[in-house]
């Protein structure tokens, strides 16, 4: 590798500071990036990694500090200037137009807007060469809307390379990939570094940081908490730098599986848009068990969550509850059957941002006494319920009448958790329950889920974080293209073995793959 001490400095951040209202997202951050190195930017969710990169790329404007690329200061707030200086960014949420082709997305904004024609011929040749050089296979005329997540990421990287980027920033690029796809991405990054590019790799996953980077910068609460050469450190020390304390893994006491509370037999559901439906799955949720659902996002997790959560019905097959359920299947029916739901997106589906905590607390229960009688709301009772959740679940907030929009993600999630658990559920559907939370909130949420399991509830834990699944689950299923793997009891599969299932192998071949 060409990088390291003495190599040319390609990027210099100096004293970057950024506030969002009361939150200090970046506090006087300075560092340098050298030619031919991969620097990992490590930190918890909310530590300020993405904000810092968005400032570097010109999406945000810093309150103070400067960015220099190849010795020249970048004017703040102009992605165009960053692109021209050779900075390319692969965003965590892809910035692609689904209604256009791969080539069109790559070409967007590359030439003069007023030129009368698109020069697709030359572009096609250049994209083909880049694809070959960096191992980024994707069809240039495919509609982006029809591509898989992994392919879309390749398009994002091609977009940057097409503009002759010398510095690549990747924001949590592995969050949506299988372990195998991650390996392929690392291969691409190594090729890039060999060709003299420099890479900033943003992640909160320690093993990936150890595998790909030559240097690690750790961000904590918006500050640069440390900088080490990867060779001089290990996972434990990085973890400590990242959260400021030793991470303790959740403890799961051995427990015999209880009676089945929910059983799916050969269930299929309709396909929706780009997401697959369920393709004839069998699943049993048992009392006192956490069942983990691993898989790359977009493989039918949403379909399963919607089915159990009451938003969808089986197109064929059966869903049996204990005690049996009769009548229409709806969110209300699911709630009545003792199913508590923690939705994937707490902002979009979990809460009404402009409602108060009180109004959000009774969102699932307002129709029944004591919160309403004969159509008349009893706001005092509702507020009492909100206060109870605030106290029991340690929701930090100005009070029950504050708008929930003002709360941090962790406190919002605690309110949702409290709302769900206070009903004394028999089944808990936890869909990405800790995504985007800081370590304190993660520990709290995991503790509550384990406590519910120990009380005898059946928990379905859906997560894209394989480490989380493996730490918390009594048994694990892998979902791929709407199909479900057999149940793997705790401790019987390694991450690599599960990764093979997550990539779709093993479903047809059977035993030889795993």
């Amino acid at each position: 590798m060409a990088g390291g001490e003495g190599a040319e400095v390609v990027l210099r951040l100096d004293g970057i500071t950024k506030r969002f209202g009361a939150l200090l997202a970046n506090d006087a951050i300075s560092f340098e990036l050298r030619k031919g190195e991969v620097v990992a930017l490590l930190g918890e969710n909310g530590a300020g990694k993405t904000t810092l990169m968005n400032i570097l790329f010109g999406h945000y404007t810093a309150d103070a500090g400067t960015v220099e690329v190849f010795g020249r200061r970048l004017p703040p707030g102009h992605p165009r200037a960053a692109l021209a200086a050779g900075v390319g960014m692969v965003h965590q949420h892809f910035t692609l137009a689904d209604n256009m082709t791969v080539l069109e997305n790559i070409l967007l904004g590359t030439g003069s807007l007023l030129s009368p024609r698109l020069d697709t011929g030359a572009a096609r040749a250049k994209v083909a060469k880049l694809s070959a050089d960096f191992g980024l296979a994707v069809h240039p005329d495919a509609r982006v809307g029809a591509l898989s997540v992994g392919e879309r990421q390749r398009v994002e990287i091609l977009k940057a390379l097409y503009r002759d980027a010398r510095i690549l920033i990747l924001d949590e690029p592995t969050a949506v990939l299988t372990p195998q796809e991650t390996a392929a991405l690392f291969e691409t990054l190594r090729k890039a570094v060999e060709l003299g590019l420099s890479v900033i790799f943003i992640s909160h996953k320690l093993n990936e940081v150890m595998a790909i980077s030559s240097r690690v910068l750790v961000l904590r609460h918006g500050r640069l908490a440390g900088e080490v050469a990867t060779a001089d450190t290990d996972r434990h020390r990085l973890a400590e730098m990242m959260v400021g304390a030793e991470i303790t893994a959740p403890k799961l006491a051995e427990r015999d599986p209880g009676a089945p509370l929910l059983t799916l037999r050969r269930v299929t559901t309709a396909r929706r848009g780009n997401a697959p439906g369920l393709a004839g799955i069998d699943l049993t949720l048992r009392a006192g068990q956490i069942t983990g659902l691993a898989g790359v996002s977009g493989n039918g997790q949403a379909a399963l969550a919607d089915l159990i959560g009451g938003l969808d019905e089986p197109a064929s097959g059966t869903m049996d509850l204990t005690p049996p359920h009769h009548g229409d299947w709806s969110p209300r029916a699911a709630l009545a059957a003792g199913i508590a739901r923690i939705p994937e997106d707490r902002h979009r589906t979990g809460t009404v941002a402009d409602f108060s905590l009180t109004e959000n607390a009774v969102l699932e229960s307002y129709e029944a006494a004591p919160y309403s009688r004969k159509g008349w709301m009893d706001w005092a009772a509702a507020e009492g319920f909100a206060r109870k959740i605030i106290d029991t679940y340690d929701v930090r907030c100005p009070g029950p009448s504050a708008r929930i929009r003002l709360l941090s993600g962790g406190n919002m999630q605690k309110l949702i958790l409290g709302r769900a658990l206070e009903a004394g559920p028999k089944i808990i559907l936890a869909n990405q329950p800790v995504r985007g939370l800081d370590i304190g909130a993660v520990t709290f949420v995991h503790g509550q889920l384990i406590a519910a399991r120990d009380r005898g509830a059946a928990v379905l834990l859906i997560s894209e974080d394989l480490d989380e699944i493996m730490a918390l689950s009594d048994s694990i299923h892998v979902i791929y293209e709407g199909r479900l793997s057999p149940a793997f009891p705790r401790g019987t599969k390694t991450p690599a073995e599960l990764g093979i299932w997550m990539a779709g192998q093993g479903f047809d071949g059977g035993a030889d793959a795993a």
Partner: protein
Amino acid sequence: MRLEPIANPTALRRFGLPATALALTVLVASLLALLAGANPFATLGLILKGAAGSKFALLETLSRATPLIFTGLAVAVAFRAKLWNIGAEAQLYAGAIVTVLLGTGALPLPSALLLPVIALAAMLAGALVLLGPVLLKTRLGVDEVVTTLLFNFIMLLFVSYLLEGPMKDPMGMGWPKSPALEKAARLPRIVDGLRLHWGFALAILAAIAVWVIQTRTTLGYETRAVGLNAEAARFAGIPVGRVMVKTALLSGGLAALAGFSEVAGLKGNLTLDLSPGFGYTGIIVAMLALLNPLGVVLSALFVAGVFVGADSMSRAAGVPTYIADILTATALLTMVLALRLTRARIRWR
């Protein structure tokens, strides 16, 4: 340029910006007066005087505000649920048609019984008119903005057909108008000899009722949840489609009361010019009131004052009455901008 949210706006922001919006509106009025060759101060004075300068003027403003309170409430109720009902005009005429249908001798009832029956029937008709577009929205995903707008044109043609055909007044000397209501079907005047009728009191009552529904009932809670975040509402088990339909029935019913009150309280019969766009003006009334039902009463009085004042000013100063439409539109646009800026500041980089 971009906007940065402000968590706790200062009092200066919260009151200064709306005041600036009003000042801008007044400025536009002055410019228009100048354009028309009139003295701006005299013009503004005449508008004020015409709107509230005498007992007669004031009662005229209250009378004009009556249908605007109803249509304003109709729009406010619907917009709360993000149901874009732009068809209050059609619902108003539906109410008016039913009022004529039942109020010209079809029901031999005493006034105290007849009026409530007519009002309820009118509400039902208005509700049904909005039901179509709403079902198309909830069942098929057809955008209700365009369908409700188009229904306004269809309804006016239907009224035109009725007034030239089955509902034509045989004594009307060929004019397209309906027969007059019987005495028992007329809303009495509050003050004898002046145009203010009990429809105004009904409008105030309606505003209070809507306020109670929105703040105290499960329907109000559901409506707000659906309007603010339909996806979260659906996830939580709120029957979004059914809430939309209920909201629509209420909204259509309220708009129809405007038609009922105009026919039974003011005009006494149905003509094609019953509403000079009360349904559309209701949108402005509702938006200026921030969709608050009690605020609707105030903003309806303001808008009615501008229209009544401009009418009287026009006769005296010769500035076209269309100044009133320009002013209300300006007030609307500047006010929504001002309210946006109370919650966000502009950053130029």
